[in-house]
């Protein structure tokens, strides 16, 4: 009797242990369904989060002048005069045309013109910069010719905001004229006369920041100058000292 009882007990223990092993290795259908549902929900959440993130962030880039700089942040004043905050991280790359070795945020200073490309957050209105480039862009002026100095190859223009800008014409300057009949054609300094509409693209002179060394001039003989522009008396304008291009300033010969 004892033997039978111990045999039954052993059998019972074996069955119990095998059942527990099977239960551990083979999940029940209910558990499987709930686990896959959880995975789907997790995936859904991740997709929704990513979509929201993509909608909130867009690739953008703008140009501005540095008004403030810290280790992780640059404040720019953009071309419309608005303040823009740019965040910098370890992935941000810096470049400058004048940099000979490595260039970083410590080399960025107030007043520099920089272009920034990165990820713009619509919510925070901040841009996480991926590239920050120090720029040397030409200035563009639209206006009317005020005076022409044929001896020194200089002229002045008046702009819509009634600024008077001195322009220096160099050998490198490309002068074209646009007429409705001929389109854009090669022209020359001799075609410039007071009152004529012009578009000038150029860089400030190295020595005289008030003088623009023209790289391109587009003359519009057919188009009237803007009626908002006040064409002041040419005698009221100070004579322009032309640039030598080498940094030396020429003094006009007075007889």
């Amino acid at each position, binding site marked *: 009797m004892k033997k039978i009882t111990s045999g039954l007990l052993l059998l019972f223990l074996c069955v119990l242990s095998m059942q527990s092993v099977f239960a551990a290795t083979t999940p029940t259908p209910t558990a499987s369904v709930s686990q896959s549902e959880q995975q789907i929900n997790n995936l859904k959440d991740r997709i929704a989060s990513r979509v929201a993130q993509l909608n909130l962030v867009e690739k953008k*880039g703008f140009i501005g002048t540095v008004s403030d700089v810290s280790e992780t942040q640059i404040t720019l004043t953009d071309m419309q005069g608005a303040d823009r905050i740019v965040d910098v991280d370890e992935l941000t790359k810096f470049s400058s045309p004048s940099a000979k070795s490595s260039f970083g945020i410590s080399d960025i200073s107030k007043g520099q013109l920089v272009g920034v490309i990165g990820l713009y957050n619509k919510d925070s209105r901040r841009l996480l910069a991926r*590239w920050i480039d120090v720029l040397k862009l030409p200035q563009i002026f639209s206006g009317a010719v005020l005076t022409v100095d044929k001896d020194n190859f200089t002229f002045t223009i008046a702009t819509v905001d009634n600024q008077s800008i001195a322009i220096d014409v160099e050998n490198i300057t490309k002068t074209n004229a646009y007429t409705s009949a001929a389109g854009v054609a090669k022209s020359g300094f001799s075609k410039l006369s007071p009152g004529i509409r012009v578009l000038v693209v150029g860089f400030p002179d190295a020595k005289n920041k008030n003088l623009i060394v023209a790289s391109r001039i587009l003359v519009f003989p057919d188009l009237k100058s803007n009626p908002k522009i006040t064409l002041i008396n040419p005698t009221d304008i100070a004579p322009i000292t032309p640039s030598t291009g080498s940094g030396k300033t020429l003094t006009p010969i007075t007889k």
Partner: protein
Amino acid sequence: MRIEKIILAIAGVFAGLFVAGIAFYIYQTTQTISPSNIKTITLQKPTPDVNAVPLSVDSPADESVTSSKIVTVSGKTQPQATIVVTTDTTDTVVKPSSSGAFSLTVTLATGENRIFLLAVMPDGSESQKVLTVNVTTEDF
């Protein structure tokens, strides 16, 4: 007796209000404001900018990032206007269609670029717009 008291009370209240109203009117009419305290405010109508030329740009979007160096500049202005599109390296002049629409392609450099648009009417009035368009082939 009670009704008489109520009528008298109501009459008293009205009489008091009447006297207070007259006193307030007399007080207000005797008040004078010295000429130095009088400020004349003239509401000026905003002067319409008769020289502004409508100029809208459909593409490219300002501050956009593109992978192509060749960009189509399109928009709308007055049909009589002349459109000048200047980049940092080239100048292009186009005339819009009879509907005022214009479209042209410009070639940009890698990095940050400015596109300067100028619309000039035959009378000399003009509008200007500056766009920043960024070219990069790198993914980020």
